[in-house]
């Protein structure tokens, strides 16, 4: 029914240009179904029934509002069409062109770069993923009223700034797709980072996976779409092993690899293959997926192909020069060439000064010093990291390390 919901909402937004109306009409149709179906039985084509009911509701509301006749004409045609074709409508096919175009319009509009990023994320979760305002609010740890305001402001800007419900021009599709992917990645990271055993955060990562799957079906020719999907699947596959029974973080080299979700790893590798098959030079998501795949394919932590991982980080630094990537590269170098080499690379990152105040900087230094046997310096670095760390799980992990080196 999720595909049906999307199709109805996207179609109604296209015809009416009214985001609230579209969601209200769908909600109304669902409520009618819940009232009627248990009594009269589920109609043969439940999807067509919902669509027609939602369209009729929209017609009623718009007639009362004396909306211009053109919108009414199109909507009448849609409602009538649905009824007579009894589910054989060409746009009822979730793989059909009309469905694809409407959902793409919805995605690109929700992720329009002229909207604030927080608004893009909220609107995507609300309208594309179909979460309630309350659910989106809970996921981002804000009140329902605050999230309601954010959604309203975002929709108001769409209307006032003249953001139309359409797919970008062909020469802009790649960069606009990158904007959509950034939103999906942000949703995933929001779910991934908040590892405090909170149900709603787990749901957020799952929502991101669903969105990535949707985008991959809609834009199969874009290599980064598959790259991102592969990255998310490969990271999410490790989820169960990332924390122990007590909810404490388990670093990758200590994870029980039998708890990695093999089916999800395979799906991630398949996405990565799809990205490679486009024949394009690897982009940032694909390179990150390649790194995740290298870890996923190592039977044990000690068997990790660190030569390949460092090479991939070098390539990633070229397409995405960022201090966080450089920090991760220093970690990989520490495994390939030993902790002293890692410390050398880390010193360069620290020297650039861009990550000042970031807890992972002293945490990585502490880990390299610990592995180099320089325990006193390591203890000082762990203590520094503890003053900067933000989540309780990471705090407990650093404290455990500090106890282990026993200084």
């Amino acid at each position: 029914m999720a595909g049906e919901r999307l199709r109805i909402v996207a179609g109604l937004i296209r015809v009416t240009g009214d985001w609230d109306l579209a969601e209200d009409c769908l909600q109304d149709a669902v409520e009618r179904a819940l009232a009627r179906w248990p009594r009269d039985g589920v109609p043969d084509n439940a999807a067509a029934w919902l669509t027609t009911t939602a369209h009729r509701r929209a017609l009623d509301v718009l007639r009362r509002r004396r909306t211009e006749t053109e919108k009414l004409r199109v909507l009448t045609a849609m409602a009538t069409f649905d009824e007579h074709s009894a589910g054989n409508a060409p746009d009822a096919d979730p793989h059909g062109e009309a469905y694809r175009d409407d959902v793409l319009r919805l995605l690109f509009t929700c992720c329009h770069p002229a909207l604030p990023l927080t608004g893009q994320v909220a609107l995507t979760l609300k309208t594309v993923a179909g979460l309630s305002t309350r659910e989106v609010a809970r996921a981002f740890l804000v009140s329902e009223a605050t999230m309601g305001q954010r959604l309203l402001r975002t929709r108001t800007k769409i209307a006032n700034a003249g953001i139309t419900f359409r797919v970008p021009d062909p020469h802009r599709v790649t960069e606009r797709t990158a904007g959509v992917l950034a939103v999906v990645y942000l949703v995933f990271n929001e779910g991934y980072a908040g590892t405090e055993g909170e149900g709603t955060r787990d749901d957020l990562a799952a929502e991101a996976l669903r969105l990535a799957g949707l985008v991959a079906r809609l834009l199969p020719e874009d290599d980064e779409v598959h790259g991102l999907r592969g990255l998310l699947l490969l990271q999410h596959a490790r989820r169960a092993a990332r924390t122990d029974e007590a909810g404490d973080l388990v670093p990758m080299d200590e994870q029980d690899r039998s708890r990695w979700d093999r089916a999800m790893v395979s799906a991630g590798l398949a996405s990565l293959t799809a990205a490679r098959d486009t024949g394009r030079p690897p982009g940032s998501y694909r390179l990150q997926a390649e790194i995740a795949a290298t870890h996923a394919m190592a039977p044990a932590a000690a068997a990790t192909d660190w030569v390949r991982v460092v090479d991939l980080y070098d390539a990633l630094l070229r397409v995405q020069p960022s201090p966080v990537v450089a920090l991760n590269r220093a970690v990989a170098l520490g495994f390939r060439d030993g902790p002293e080499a890692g410390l050398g690379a880390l010193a360069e990152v620290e020297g650039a000064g861009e990550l000042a105040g970031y807890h992972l900087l002293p945490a990585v230094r502490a880990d390299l010093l610990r592995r180099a046997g320089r325990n006193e310096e390591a203890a000082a670095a762990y203590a520094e990291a503890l003053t900067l760390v933000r989540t309780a799980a990471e705090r407990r992990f650093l404290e455990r390390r500090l106890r282990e080196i026993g200084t």
Partner: protein
Amino acid sequence: MKYMMFVATDTAPDTSPEPQADIEVWGADVDGRGKWVMGDRLRPLEDATTVRVRSGELLVTDGPFTESKEWIMGFDILECEDLDEAIEIASKHPMARNGRLELRPFWPIDEG
């Protein structure tokens, strides 16, 4: 839809070796397609005058209403289908690289 496009300076212009766009070519294109309503350069900030009335008293001061490292050096009024078209037109303006452009939709007085 009408958009006011403010043409402003920027402390971090593009330094890439891409060939510079020509303002004449840009102007001829947008005018030829009926997308350009009007536009002009504006004299520099030294020639700006700020006017206020407080408690019935007229206050006239030298300079702009905000001090900023960037300043508005001109404007164009565009008539576009939607924001995407306005963005496309703005992206071809030479000051998109040498400065920055701000698109503000008109808010017609008869609209709520």
